């Protein structure tokens, strides 16, 4: 409950800061936010696009949150997405099975790719106590250059050197009935997989022994070890699952929202995953709603930019400021405490005064 309040206050503060920024560049915040929310939610097609934008963020948020629960900071989600997406794209471009089998294989490839990429830092952490933050950052850049050379080398696009070939219509996560239902939006099956992932992760964290052990390691590594838990195994496992979720995010991004891979970009959704997890207080359901909010911000700013001259980077700025406020939530906690105290003090002061009046 309290976490929810803190998150909501962070969001409000972030939106206020965004409004101030709009004022600063001479635009009207009211107009800006009106266009932003219109752009995200005006009609069914735009709602579909918003949900699609949120889909990879659900996965990356889950990935970060899951590792967080074990006390690990997986900052390498971007790289894991790239590798997961690359693996899925490679499967989709190379094989010609029937659609359900191919989609299943692509998802498996994404899980394995992302999981493998996170396994390495997890192993280094467990075995050699290498800090996972630095290790995952290095893995990000290794992934960046791997994609940079593998895509043009093996899956070069027809027109551009910097893109992979496009996946065939039937080999992506898009389905005709969803596209029709949302009137031409690029919403796809990724959203359903994301919802399933939210449920599964919530189940693992809250209902299984594994989840309990992972959380125990996150709370106090030494106590967990003393209690007989295999800490090192749990660290590796946590990174593996986190990476697999990130890889799925890559699958959703590159074979659902898009149908080809671009080189030379670390997907920003990986870093946004940190913000999503933080805002969602590392709970799967919280992650889901935080991702939806960020989806609205991202898909709305395009429309806003077209209607009035506000750069679309407003969304990133608001998100960055929200994450800062979420990181400094101690301040909000303190203010809440103060507020509560003054309120109870006020009651105390008013009490006697009221009695005096009566007498």
């Amino acid at each position, binding site marked *: 409950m309290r976490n929810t309040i803190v998150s909501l206050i962070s969001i409000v503060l972030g939106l206020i800061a965004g409004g101030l*920024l709009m004022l600063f*560049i001479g635009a009207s915040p009211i107009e800006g936010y009106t266009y932003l929310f219109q752009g995200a939610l005006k009609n069914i097609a735009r709602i579909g696009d918003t949900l699609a934008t949120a889909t990879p963020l659900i996965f990356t948020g889950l990935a970060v949150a899951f590792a967080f629960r074990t006390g690990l*900071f997986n*900052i390498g989600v971007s790289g894991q997405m790239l590798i997961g997406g690359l693996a899925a794209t490679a499967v989709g471009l190379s094989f010609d099975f029937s659609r359900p089998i191919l989609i299943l294989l692509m998802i498996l490839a994404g899980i394995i790719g992302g999981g493998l990429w996170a396994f*390495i830092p997890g192993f*280094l952490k467990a075995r*050699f*106590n*290498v*800090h996972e*933050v*630095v*290790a995952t*950052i*290095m*893995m990000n*850049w*290794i992934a960046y*250059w*791997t994609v*940079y*050379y*593998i895509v043009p080398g093996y899956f070069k696009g027809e027109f551009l050197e910097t893109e992979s070939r496009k996946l065939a219509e039937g080999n992506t996560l898009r389905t005709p009935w969803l596209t029709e239902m949302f009137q031409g939006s690029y919403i796809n099956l990724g959203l359903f997989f994301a919802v399933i992932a939210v449920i599964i992760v919530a189940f693992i964290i809250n209902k299984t022994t594994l989840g309990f052990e992972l959380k125990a390691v996150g709370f106090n590594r030494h106590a967990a070890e003393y209690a007989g838990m295999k800490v090192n195994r749990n660290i590796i496992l946590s990174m593996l699952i986190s990476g697999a979720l990130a890889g799925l995010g890559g699958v959703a991004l590159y074979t659902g929202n898009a149908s080809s891979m671009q080189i030379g970009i670390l997907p920003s959704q990986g*870093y946004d995953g*940190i*913000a999503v997890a*933080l805002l969602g207080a590392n709970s799967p359901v919280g992650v889901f709603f935080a991702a939806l909010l960020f989806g609205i911000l991202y898909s709305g700013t395009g429309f806003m930019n077209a209607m009035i*001259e506000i*750069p679309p*980077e*407003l969304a*990133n*700025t608001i*998100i*960055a*400021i929200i*994450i*800062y406020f*979420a*990181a*400094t*939530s*101690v*301040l909000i906690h303190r203010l809440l405490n103060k507020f509560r105290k003054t309120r109870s003090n006020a009651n105390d002061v008013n009490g006697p005064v009221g009695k005096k009046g009566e007498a």
Partner: protein
Amino acid sequence: MWTIIEQIFPYAIIFTIPLLITALGGLFSERSGIVNIGLEGLMISGAFASALTVNFLQDKMQGSTILWIGLLVAAVVGILFSLLHAFASINLSADQVISGTAINMIAMALTVFLARNITGSGNIRITSGFTPFDVPILSKIPIIGDLLFTKTYATTWFILLVLIISAFILNKTKFGLRLKSCGEFPQAAQAAGINVVGIRYIGVMLSGALSGLGGGIIILTYAGEFTGSVSGLGFLALASLIFGQWRPLGILGATLFFGFASTIANVSQVIPELAVIPPIILKIFPYVVTLIALVIFSKSSQAPKAAGEPFDPGKR
């Protein structure tokens, strides 16, 4: 072979310098006990500030003065940005890694947002930058002259001077020892009468100033245009800091390594001897070596013991 080295050397040095100064900034912060993963963002803010300043002044003034003004503004903006991190991690005991990540994200988004608002495209071009020069007399020395004293930038010598001063401050002055004690055992430092909060603020602000300077140097020497990123150099600086085991000279060695590795990867296509190696190997080489180095150093890490922990005066 010799000609290759001779050709690569000046470029490698040019590439090393921003990395070196940023890693040095990270050193001050981490040695005072505050992990600063926001180096990338601080660099970007410095790059943005210097590009904007020089772009604004280049029609009104002549000469290299505006470039130095640009660097000064970069350092100041770096300090201002780093205060966000200092406030969060020192006063509010926030998770330093998350706060640093927030700094990165704010800097990346905000600078492009403002740049796009100013120029439309989001890129800020500058027409003049530092020009390389040959150091008189010294450049005539055989071998060393060719390698070290030709095609050098004024900023290179300035940064090397900063490095020497920093090493001196850290190891020989009262302030340096106090700074290091705050990173090792802040409770003991406080008991000895040291203002831990103040020292840590200075440490983080120094990292802001030096990273801002690093970002500014990128723009004013080899980039010539602000495009909204410093392509991961801040993270590479962070790796150099660990690779260099939190010591000024170690950092110099580590950043030189990265400078050379990156330059070789960048020019490999035009040099026949190197073109036989697949470029992907050369590109990922520095990162793989860092991972290996992390494994090797893991047993004997010289990391400041209290880095990353919020300061709790009551803890024993």
